[in-house]
């Protein structure tokens, strides 16, 4: 096995034992990139791989996380060539932990608006399991890079499933931590009440390790709460005896692919055999999660993206408009892609005079109901198990013409963001066409330890995480 195929923990052991040098990991990554990147396109185009750092295990970083002096463009024309003058807090933490940051950023849907990584100014990423299919999104570049062994591990961001859904489509592990667990300072904001940064890794142990590194209080982000970070690697215990699992009936309805359903039911059976108790539960407001999300997320996005106006950074129009307003409007009209414009306009509409109460305020109230659903279940249960996505990876172009249809692919991941709870997706099967299926586990807020314990136990009793795409 080549070094680039190993997990971060396996590589660190070899480094500690002085069996290998960091440069050997780098050259094995570079060799892999030369073979497969042309097909996968996990990284932002024009990325230069010669400058992968020589020291420490390298981490691939999504293009919306600020890296000092390195292009951070949110895969948008409007942020073309932006080089942040500072590092995001997660980047500082990664460096302090002795890891290194890859200079080539991973591809994404523009400003994380999408579920397929087709909405990138730099072109689509392809799923390593079938290059005619999407890798999911918006952190599709990070997930595809890890799945194709073009990265050891990576960071993504998750607003409505943008870590978990691509992890599921690419057969890797993706964690969305509890809201407030990881500092958002330096994450270019999409929806501030929903966004979280999290790891995309080859197995659960790496996920726990990287989560531990990036979590914690930060004075630069008032929502990064001051609660001690447990050593998540100590939660990697192979035991689910007595764990109470709830399975929500609302997630097993029309629209769920039969093969996906079959694999999830098998996963539930296995956990039962390992000593967990499983019961059906109700999350009655699930049907409202998607409309609530697309009101709240677009409203917050319309406000956050007001800063891209051609003044401080990025792209400015060449057109010779007369006024400042003309310059703003032309710059934003030319600089944003279709999905970004659609969402900004939708968000502006739901916040505008006369519609605020009917849409935005009502959505915030229904958000309370969704959160209450979870609170009620977690009084009795340790975790909730669901599919991560209703289908395996779909074909490139298949959903591009119908935004609403695309939004539906996040239907199982969005509720965790609305409720602020942690959730992980891990591989639990391959379809007959050899496309990965993801199992989603959710726990109550700040209980990542239980999440890792259940995920680790499942993973160590199966071999799905060891399957590799045949590129």
């Amino acid at each position: 096995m080549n070094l680039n195929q190993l997990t971060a923990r396996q590589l660190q052991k070899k480094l500690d034992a002085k069996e290998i040098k960091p440069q050997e990991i780098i050259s094995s990554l570079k060799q892999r990139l030369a073979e497969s990147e042309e097909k996968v396109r996990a990284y932002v185009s024009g990325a230069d791989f010669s400058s992968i750092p020589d020291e420490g295990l390298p981490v691939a970083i999504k293009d919306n996380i600020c890296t000092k002096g390195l292009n951070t463009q949110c895969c948008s024309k409007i942020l073309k060539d932006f080089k942040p003058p500072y590092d995001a807090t997660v980047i500082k933490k990664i460096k302090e932990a002795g890891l290194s940051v890859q200079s080539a950023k991973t591809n994404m849907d523009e400003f994380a608006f999408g579920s397929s990584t087709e909405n990138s100014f730099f072109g689509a990423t392809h799923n390593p399991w079938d290059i005619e299919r999407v890798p999911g999104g918006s952190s599709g570049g990070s997930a595809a890079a890890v799945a194709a062994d073009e990265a050891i591990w990576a960071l993504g961001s998750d607003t409505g499933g943008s870590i978990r859904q691509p992890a599921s489509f690419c057969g890797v592990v993706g964690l969305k931590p509890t809201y407030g667990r990881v500092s958002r300072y330096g994450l270019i904001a999409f929806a501030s009440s929903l966004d979280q940064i999290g790891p995309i890794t080859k197995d659960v142990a790496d996920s726990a390790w990287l989560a531990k590194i990036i979590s914690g209080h930060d004075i630069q982000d008032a929502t990064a709460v001051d609660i001690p970070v447990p050593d998540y690697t100590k939660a990697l215990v192979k035991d689910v005896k007595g764990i109470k699992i709830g399975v929500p009936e609302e997630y097993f309805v029309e629209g769920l692919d039969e093969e996906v359903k079959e694999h999830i039911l098998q996963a539930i059976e296995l956990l039962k055999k390992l000593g967990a108790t499983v019961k059906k539960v109700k999350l009655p407001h699930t049907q409202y999660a998607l409309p609530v999300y697309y009101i709240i997320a677009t409203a917050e996005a319309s406000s956050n993206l007001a800063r891209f106006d051609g003044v401080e950074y990025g792209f400015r129009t060449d057109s010779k408009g007369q006024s400042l307003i003309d310059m703003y409007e032309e710059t934003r009209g030319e600089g944003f892609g279709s999905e970004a414009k659609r969402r900004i306009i939708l968000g502006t509409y739901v916040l505008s005079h006369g519609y605020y109460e009917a849409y935005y305020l009502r959505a915030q109230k229904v958000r309370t109901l969704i959160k209450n659903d979870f609170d009620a279940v977690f009084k009795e249960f340790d975790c909730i198990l669901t599919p991560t996505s209703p289908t395996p990876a779909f074909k490139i172009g298949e959903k591009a013409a119908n935004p609403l249809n695309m939004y539906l692919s996040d239907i199982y991941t969005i509720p965790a963001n609305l409720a602020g709870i942690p959730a992980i997706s891990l591989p639990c099967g391959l379809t007959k066409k050899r496309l990965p299926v993801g199992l989603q586990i959710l726990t109550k807020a700040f209980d990542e330890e239980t999440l890792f314990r259940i995920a680790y136990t499942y993973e160590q009793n199966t071999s799905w995480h060891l399957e590799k795409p045949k590129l």
Partner: protein
Amino acid sequence: MAISKDTVKYVAHLARIRLKPEELDVFSVQLEEILKYMEKLNEAEVSHIPPTSHILSLKNVFRADQVRPSLDVDAVLENAPKKKDRQFSVPKVIA
């Protein structure tokens, strides 16, 4: 709720985005479809439910009022599409 091209144009102006005529055509159809889907929320009973703006029960988060280093002005201006005399440059605001 029907959403006319004029409404889309007006909201796009509020959002400071200039749309091409063909974008107006597509967006008014798509936004209408999306807003119609959102009307599902009208079924939910929320008259006695408080809104959630975010899930943490944080109130005011205070920190010590200490002077910390700021970003370097020249480093920040590196990214500006147009600058003059160590400042951002924009089209004339007052004629």
